[in-house]
């Protein structure tokens, strides 16, 4: 069964997608190290560092967005060709796009390390570099649209969903290359990336990837998967779009957003439910998987787990305006963000990157076990780290927001939790490096 996939003709796009995925995994390895340094800086007074905390954090947030972005670019090319069973419109453009996105991504981190930035959370780099990222996204969108249009009779839902996701990534980033004078507009636009990239655009590319993965690996049949895909995609767009309102509660917007934001956020949960359903269908339909697919599934199931818990349940709790009034801007938000951003999106991109980079090989039993161990360590590390942040957030809410204690007095009492966060973060880093090593090995084995 599975031989048929590996022996299938390999498209140029699939070879090109490997460099995206490898770069994404390298940046992910860097990410956990940078994050660990920042976490240490918070608990050790006067820790000497070449990069001050505020710029280290900026790099951390930038990495959080851009390693999944680069990985997604690779995954989308790979799974578009796998899904449509034909080459993309222009492999050359895809090669150029790789250099464009890498150049501007690294420019952002390089300049931030030199303390040059634009000071907008999650978009700390200079606006010109984001314009460069937009250029890469334009190349990607153009390439994908042309690929779809080459054979209009055979546009599949998964391919269309991934293309729309890529276009949204572009459209949502574009306004963020402008410098706004109005602080309310500035805040509002920022969430088109901070919220909508993840909860809409990446959701579409991920769902498309998962659907294609199930179909091409023969885990589930096409009709079963495709039945709901358009509905799921539409709900992700509607829910995601208006769900942005839950970030607009207190930034100077009218009160209508309190109602709109919290109610529409309920809609955002439906596509997550459908995602779980789709995954379940895929798992049930076939018993035997090879090790490579099993390891991909470990990563995928981790993502589904955080989709339900960290993103949906915790997220919904936070969108209740009365809860948000008190917990907004505390470490509780930080805990939620780590579970939602890395937990849901990060794991899915890792699943895709691993699958792409191990194409044509099969891990030995030992490698498979090592890979699973890495995934387990990552999960435990993430859960310890995020639980520590959530607990810190609860205490902070009580002391600072309810009792009205001075911010810094309250913050100093959170130290034990922040130390626990460092321990969780250390574990996460170990899992990260171990997994990256196995993925790197798979890449080397298949790099002909």
């Amino acid at each position, binding site marked *: 069964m599975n031989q048929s996939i590996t022996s299938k003709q390999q498209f140029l796009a699939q070879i090109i997608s490997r460099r995206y995925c490898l770069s994404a995994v390298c940046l992910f390895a860097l990410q956990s190290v940078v994050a660990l340094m920042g976490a240490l800086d918070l608990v050790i*007074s006067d820790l000497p560092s070449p990069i001050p905390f505020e*710029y280290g954090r900026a790099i951390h947030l930038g990495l959080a967005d851009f390693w999944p972005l680069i990985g997604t670019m690779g995954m989308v090319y790979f799974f578009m060709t796998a899904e449509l069973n034909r080459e993309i419109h222009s492999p050359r453009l895809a090669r150029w796009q790789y250099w464009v996105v890498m150049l501007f991504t690294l420019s952002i981190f390089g300049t931030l390390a030199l303390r040059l930035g634009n000071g907008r*959370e999650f978009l700390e780099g200079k606006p010109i570099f984001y314009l460069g990222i937009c250029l890469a996204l334009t190349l990607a969108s153009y390439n994908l649209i042309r690929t779809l249009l080459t054979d209009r009779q055979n546009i599949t839902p998964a391919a269309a969903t991934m293309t729309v996701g890529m276009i949204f990534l572009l459209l949502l980033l574009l306004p963020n290359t402008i410098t706004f004078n109005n602080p309310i507009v500035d805040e509002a636009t920022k969430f088109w990336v901070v919220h909508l990239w993840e909860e809409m655009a990446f959701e579409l590319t991920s769902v498309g990837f998962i659907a294609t993965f199930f179909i091409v690996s023969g885990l589930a049949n096409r009709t079963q998967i495709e039945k709901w895909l358009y509905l799921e995609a539409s709900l992700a767009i509607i829910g995601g779009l208006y769900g942005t309102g839950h970030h607009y509660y207190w930034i100077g917007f*009218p009160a209508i957003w309190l109602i709109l934001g919290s109610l529409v956020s309920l809609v955002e949960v439906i596509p997550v439910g459908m995602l779980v359903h789709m995954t379940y269908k895929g798992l049930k339909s076939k018993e035997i998987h090879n090790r490579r697919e099993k390891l991909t599934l470990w990563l995928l199931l981790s993502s589904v787990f955080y989709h339900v818990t960290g993103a949906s349940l915790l997220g919904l709790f936070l969108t209740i305006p009365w809860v948000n009034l008190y917990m907004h801007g505390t470490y509780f938000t930080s805990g939620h963000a780590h579970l939602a951003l890395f937990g849901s999106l990060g794991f899915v991109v890792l699943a895709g990157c691993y699958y792409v980079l191990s194409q044509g090989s099969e891990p030995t039993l030992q490698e498979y076990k090592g890979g699973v161990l890495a995934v387990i360590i990552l999960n435990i590390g993430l859960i310890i780290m995020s639980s520590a942040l959530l607990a810190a957030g609860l205490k902070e809410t009580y002391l600072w927001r309810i009792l009205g204690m001075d911010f810094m007095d309250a913050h100093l009492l959170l130290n034990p939790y922040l130390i626990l966060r460092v321990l969780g973060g250390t574990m996460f880093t170990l899992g990260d490096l171990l997994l990256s090593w196995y993925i790197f090995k798979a890449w080397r084995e298949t790099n002909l």
Partner: protein
Amino acid sequence: MISAKLPSSIPEQAVAGKLIWQKNNCVSCHTLFGHGGYEADDLTHITDAETTEYLIDFLVEAPVMRPHKYARHPALDQIDAENLVNYLEFLNTIPTLGWPPQQEQVEDDS
């Protein structure tokens, strides 16, 4: 979809202050409207709590940050500090629908 009307037009000095805010990456530690870093106080309504002179002095003669013994808050020159405080004063006029939650002021006000 966007209904981001300012309560009053933003003065030029506040616009300059906003750029100072961005240039110095203040948001990595502080929050505005609760959005930003978790390491330092929210500054949306700081001008209610502290006087303009105190804030400008704080920014120009940057003090050591608790719990550090040596590390100081990043410092600004006089003009930048004035612009930044002007921006913070402007932010204070934006209606935030009752956020942050009001409590009995137990202590503080220096």
